[in-house]
């Protein structure tokens, strides 16, 4: 089978080389070139004719949505997947609207990135896991919950702060949270100060009480791993 041709556009050398190394080890994907900027990618596009462009969300010197439109205008059949270091809902939607077919965080498993690349290029069929409906229900509940809470204290927290807050409700100490989340204790303390400021709590007890009072500790759930039948539910 012919390998899929991939062009990566990222100004960070380590990211480009890391992805090259990981994708080459896995096989099935041919990383045909690396570009450090959008203009460089646009120059390479016609010569290389890639199947997929992996584009850094924070590529300097170019608006992300505009970059996607330019790439798609040059080669409409080339698919674009955005690689993001941090999730940004607004930019994710803008990217998809501009013509990208995927938006993934840079810390996803390389196998899943490769599946994503394969999936977007040939319309590969994907199994419909039994847990999909459960997931949709969970998201529906979460959205309802978010809408109700938006404008109040919960909406202002980052996902990391939410994680820390959840750990606090479980009774974890700063040191335990730091260990679990691979952060320094100082960073955890800094996040906790930010949480207090955002939710208007004076101390840990008050913060945990607010979580429990709002029922947030019982958030809707993500899919159950046991029900999914193990890692990698995407079929071939």
């Amino acid at each position, binding site marked *: 089978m012919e390998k899929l041709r991939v062009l990566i556009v990222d100004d960070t050398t380590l990211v480009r080389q890391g992805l090259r190394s990981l994708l080459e080890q896995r096989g099935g994907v041919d990383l045909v070139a690396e570009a450090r900027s959008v203009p460089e990618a646009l120059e390479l596009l016609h010569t290389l004719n890639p199947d997929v462009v992996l584009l850094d969300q924070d590529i300097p010197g170019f608006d992300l949505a505009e970059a996607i439109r330019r790439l798609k205008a040059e080669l409409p059949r080339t698919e674009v997947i955005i690689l993001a270091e941090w999730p940004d809902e607004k930019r994710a939607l803008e990217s998809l609207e501009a013509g990208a077919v995927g938006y993934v965080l840079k810390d996803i498993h390389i196998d899943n990135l490769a599946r*994503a690349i394969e999936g977007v290029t040939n319309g590969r069929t994907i199994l419909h896991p039994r847990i999909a409906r459960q997931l949709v229900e969970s998201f529906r509940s979460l959205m309802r919950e978010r809408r109700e809470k938006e404008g109040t204290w919960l909406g202002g927290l980052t996902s990391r702060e939410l994680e820390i807050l959840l750990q606090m409700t479980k009774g974890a100490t700063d040191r335990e949270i730091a260990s679990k989340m691979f952060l320094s204790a100082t960073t955890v303390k800094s996040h906790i100060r930010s949480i207090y400021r955002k939710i208007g709590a004076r101390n840990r007890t008050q913060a945990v009480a607010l979580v429990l009072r709002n029922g947030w500790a019982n958030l809707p759930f*993500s899919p159950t791993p046991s029900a999914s039948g193990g890692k*990698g539910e995407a079929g071939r």
Partner: protein
Amino acid sequence: MTREHLVFVPESEWPDASRCPVGWTFAYQASLWTVKGVLLAQAPSGARGLLLIVGQEHEPAA
């Protein structure tokens, strides 16, 4: 190692097209899970939908 799962959700079942779930964190069975990616994809039936990459952030708490 972080565990990840891929889940396909048909477009018709996605509750709100104006929301993108990447980065959302959920609690489940004393673990935290984050949506690490979303891809526009196609089911065997031909239905369009979202492929979600869901990663487990931590092992279940003791």
